């Protein structure tokens, strides 16, 4: 057995050669690009990258800018609400669909349809729905409730929730389908057993089914989280950051300063902070998930 050890590197040669393009891409484009961006965030590059170091100036300016602070706060509100609500809504919808109802596939299609729309379309549709002159407010008022007011996109304090509604509407369908797939993966015998024991359905879900669906939840979490960090087009289409700067997002700050403001250094500093924020969440989770125990028992 020991003699075969040195050959470890050459085992599965074909597979390893096939993976080389992907490995190179990952190293050069992702890792290389990331390092380059971080390095240039310490320069005062304007429209074009220039190696002209200024230390932490870009970061000082970034954290002294109100728009950036508002962006971070918005991302936090949007992120927490989106994560919790889309999981809850997605799971409840999936559990309801799992009751062996009639026309299940019709409901599933309807609920998944919003996901087929791009964020730009979603943003525009909800911009109209939430517009006080054409949308919900107008309809309710024309029914006779004259004083009804619902204009989240025009009120700076709650505008971010207007974005959240649109995001949930678009994303919940996908989460529901993922959850439904997870529920279908549960052995029917478990349901039979819990029924025999007389356990109520909600208890079965909370204490038996959900713990068994852990892998599905992890996947879903990663999908939702990556969607949250990169939220950009939805805001651009729905409010373009307004009213004022009430719905600005970090990704939009990066874009606006990198290209609109022709200040690459500032944009790089902001995107480095975004990377740092993601790393703070991902690294501890990855260590818990992969680090603690050996692979494959």
């Amino acid at each position: 057995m020991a003699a075969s050890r040195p050959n470890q590197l050459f085992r599965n040669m074909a597979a390893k050669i096939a993976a080389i393009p992907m490995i190179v891409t990952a190293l050069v484009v992702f890792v290389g690009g990331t390092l380059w961006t971080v390095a240039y965030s310490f320069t005062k590059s304007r429209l074009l990258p220039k190696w002209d170091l200024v230390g932490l100036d870009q970061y000082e300016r970034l954290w002294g800018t109100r728009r950036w602070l508002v962006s971070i706060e918005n991302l936090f509100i949007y992120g927490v609400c989106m994560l919790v609500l889309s999981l809850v809504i997605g799971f409840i919808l999936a559990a309801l669909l799992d009751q062996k109802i009639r026309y299940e596939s019709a409901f599933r299609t309807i609920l998944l349809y919003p996901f087929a729309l791009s964020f730009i379309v979603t943003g525009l549709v909800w911009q109209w729905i939430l517009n006080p002159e054409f949308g919900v407010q107008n309809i309710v008022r024309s029914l006779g409730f004259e004083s009804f007011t619902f204009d989240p996109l025009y009120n700076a304090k709650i505008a971010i929730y207007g974005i959240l509604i649109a995001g949930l509407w678009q994303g919940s369908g996908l989460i529901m389908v993922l959850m439904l797939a997870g529920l279908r993966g549960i052995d029917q015998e478990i349901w039979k057993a819990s029924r025999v024991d007389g356990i109520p359905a909600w208890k079965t879900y909370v204490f038996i089914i959900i713990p068994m669906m852990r892998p599905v939840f992890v996947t879903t979490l990663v999908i939702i989280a990556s969607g949250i960090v990169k939220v950009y087009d939805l805001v651009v289409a729905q409010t373009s950051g307004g009213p004022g700067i009430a719905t600005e997002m970090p990704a939009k700050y990066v874009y606006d300063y990198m290209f609109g403001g022709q200040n690459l250094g500032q944009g790089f500093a902001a995107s480095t902070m975004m990377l740092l924020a993601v790393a703070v969440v991902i690294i501890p989770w990855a260590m818990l998930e992969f680090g603690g125990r050996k692979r494959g028992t």
Partner: protein
Amino acid sequence: MKAIRNAFWASTALCAATAVSATELEVTHWWTSGGEAAAVAEIAKAFDATGHTWVDGAIAGSGNTARPIMISRITGGDPMAATQFNHGRQAEELVEAGLMRDLTDIAKAQGWTEVVNPPSLLDSCTVDGKIYCAPINIHSWQWLWLSDKAYTEAGLEVPTNWDEFVAAAPALVEAGKVPLAMGQQGWQQKGAFDVLMIALLPNDIYLKVNRDKDAEVAAGPEVAKIFEAISIARDLSKDSNVQDWNQATNMVITGQAGGQIMGDWAQGEFAVAGLTAGEDYHCLPGLGSKEILTTGGDAFYFPVLKDEEESAAQAELAALMLEPAVQVAFNLKKGSLPVRGDVDLEAANDCMNKGLKILSGGDSLPDINQLISSDTRTQLEDLLVEFFADTSITPQEAQERFADIIADAD
């Protein structure tokens, strides 16, 4: 079936034939509103008449949306044949990096230095003694557009300056109108701010703040007056929920709003709507308080291309843009003023004549884009868009932040 196939062959052959004799040039710009599109079609028509083909690359949204797309195409190695920028510092670094074509020969042959008026337009195209862009029009920001319909319906006289405009506002509100139409976008609010600064203060304050970046003046008592004025503008425009400038202009056209502070490009919208200057609408250069205009505007830059045929066609296009006939046709539709002092705008309307008179009198200031960098502009727009949306920000607070930005500006 055979007929279809023949038709197909014929059309392919036709395409091939035209491709040999003419060159297609893609031109990018952000002229997408009604008046603007009509104006750009005039240049396209003139260029197509030379046997080449104008491929229109209009990018919707404002310049703030379009410029990043243009810049990333140029820096990314996929340049268009020609692209619009505003005069001034927007393309500064692209020129320094050698990505833009030197137009000095064409300018010499056409005698641009003699005909372009005011000369500052050509100065902003010049880097190290070489000319890099073809100015095409002069735009000025300092206009207050007033709706006769709105004032008549409210039973008022049309105001003749900013103070009267502010005084007339309460009566307009009573008549159910919005006194000041304002799109909720930073560049429009920043524009209005600069207009107020130029119209209500002596010229040297504008230059000290924006050209010399004098933070003490920016924090001083005179600029404080402008922050008072802009907070009045905030109150007057609080019911104006539109985004794009032409939607705001439309409020003035339809009489829903009393007035709008917007550059002379708004005139194109009035013209498309069939309104007559002096009868259906009034315009006050310098807000009626001071006869002065800034001379910003649009210029075309020509990225360096490898293809020789395309480069030759580029040169033709550059020369064509300053030809008197094109200048007249384009600027009449656009509502802007021609860059040549020697063309005759017979068809110019009331408002354009007012502008021409001020320019020929020599009362002009450099445009804001010729003075501050895009970076500073973005910061100031962020400040003003927040100020307009959030009434809890006092003018004093806003001025402090304004002075900080000016102190850091380059």
